[in-house]
């Protein structure tokens, strides 16, 4: 039985990987796709979703779930599939770490990072670069 799969990731706009990036990406893709059905958004927040990839959500929600979850917990867009965020919530309750991260206001997706290495972006801090307006609001909220 094949797992139902709807893939709404956008095409990559980043230039193709060169040099060491190619094997890095290949390893990352192979590992993460196998383990978590990763959609290679390049800005991973798996730690805050109980290790459930939010880009599997047909609406690509970073702060899910939406209000349309079916009464049995399935997705309104792909009814054969469990709502990604129902899964994320339940799995986050089973993790001993990062339990309150699921309540964080996650920033908007930078679609330019599609098909780039989230591991590299984590190390360089590229996945934490937010638009200026967003950073200003966060600074005010932190005061």
């Amino acid at each position, binding site marked *: 039985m094949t797992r139902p799969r709807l893939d*709404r990731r956008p095409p990559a706009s980043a230039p193709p990987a060169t040099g060491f990036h190619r094997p890095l990406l290949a390893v990352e893709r192979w590992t993460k796709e196998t383990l978590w059905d990763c959609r290679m958004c390049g800005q991973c927040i798996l730690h805050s979703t109980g290790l459930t990839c939010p880009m599997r959500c*047909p*609406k*690509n*929600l*970073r*702060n*899910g*779930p*939406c*209000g*349309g*979850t*079916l*009464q*049995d*917990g399935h997705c*309104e*867009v792909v009814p054969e599939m469990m*709502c990604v*965020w*129902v899964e994320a*919530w*339940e799995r986050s309750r089973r993790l001993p770490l990062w339990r309150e991260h*699921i*309540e*964080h*206001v*996650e*920033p*908007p*997706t930078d*679609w330019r990072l599609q098909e780039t290495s989230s591991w590299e972006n984590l190390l360089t801090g590229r996945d934490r670069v937010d*638009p*200026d*307006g*967003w*950073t*200003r*609001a966060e600074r*005010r*909220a932190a005061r």
Partner: protein
Amino acid sequence: MSHLHRLLLAGEFVVTAEMQTSDSADPASIVRDAETLRGAADAVNCTDNSAAHTHVSALAASRLLVEAGIEPVMQLVCRDRNRLALQADLLGGAALGVRNVVCMTGDDVSAGDHPEAKPIYDIDSVHLIRIARIMRDEGVYLSGRPLSEPPTFLIGAVENPFAPPRDFRPRRLGTKIEAGAEFIQTQICFNLETMRIFMARCGELGLLDDVWVLAGVFIPSSARGARYLRDHVPGVDVPDSVIERMESVPPERQREEGIALALDVVDAVRQIPGVSGIHLMTINHEEAIPRVVEAAGLLPRSAPAP
């Protein structure tokens, strides 16, 4: 400051209502649809291609309402527009007199009349709420580019206490408040027990000091309509008791029974601590809204300040 905001600050129990969706290019007919609600609601929601069915835009309907002297609440979904267009509409709406916005994700295109369309979902509803606040309070776009004149509005959102994962929903409301939501309109409430549990949990989390909650109340017009809601509108919990009640009366009496049912829900939610108002919705039964408001003893509504 919007009239709705003023009422909420004064601690009044408010009434908002959704105006009928319009498929007309005639401005007079659009305003006529909203006239039924004048004096019965403090503000009227203009929906944004609701249920993924195309209609006259929320921006256009909102402006027509402003010109007619009815206060609009402009709905914005993330399904059809990217962050540039949504910011343009937030600013444009403010320029046209919109003082209340409600930000939501939006039903998928597959549920609507153009299932072949490309869904956008560039940002989600939490992002949109935060962006509305950034424009209003920081006076800049998301990108940081300054606005020469920032918009003023009351920022709203929606929440659905009735869809899984139910125990996460109160916390998600907390996330929306953190992002900037000042009031919410809930999804349709038929299941009062779930609503009570949700509100109690929100109270425990301390959220009710920071947000006004308007309970969504639907006025069914027929048993068939109630069944449609149960079977075809995702996220709505329609208990069997509601279907049975509507089916227990003959078809010609079902419109009246729907009004009585809605009245019972209104009476019940008014007893729940922390509920600051109701948000009335119907499908092709708009004339029932003023009747429910009146029968609930909620007339007359305060007149807007000149």
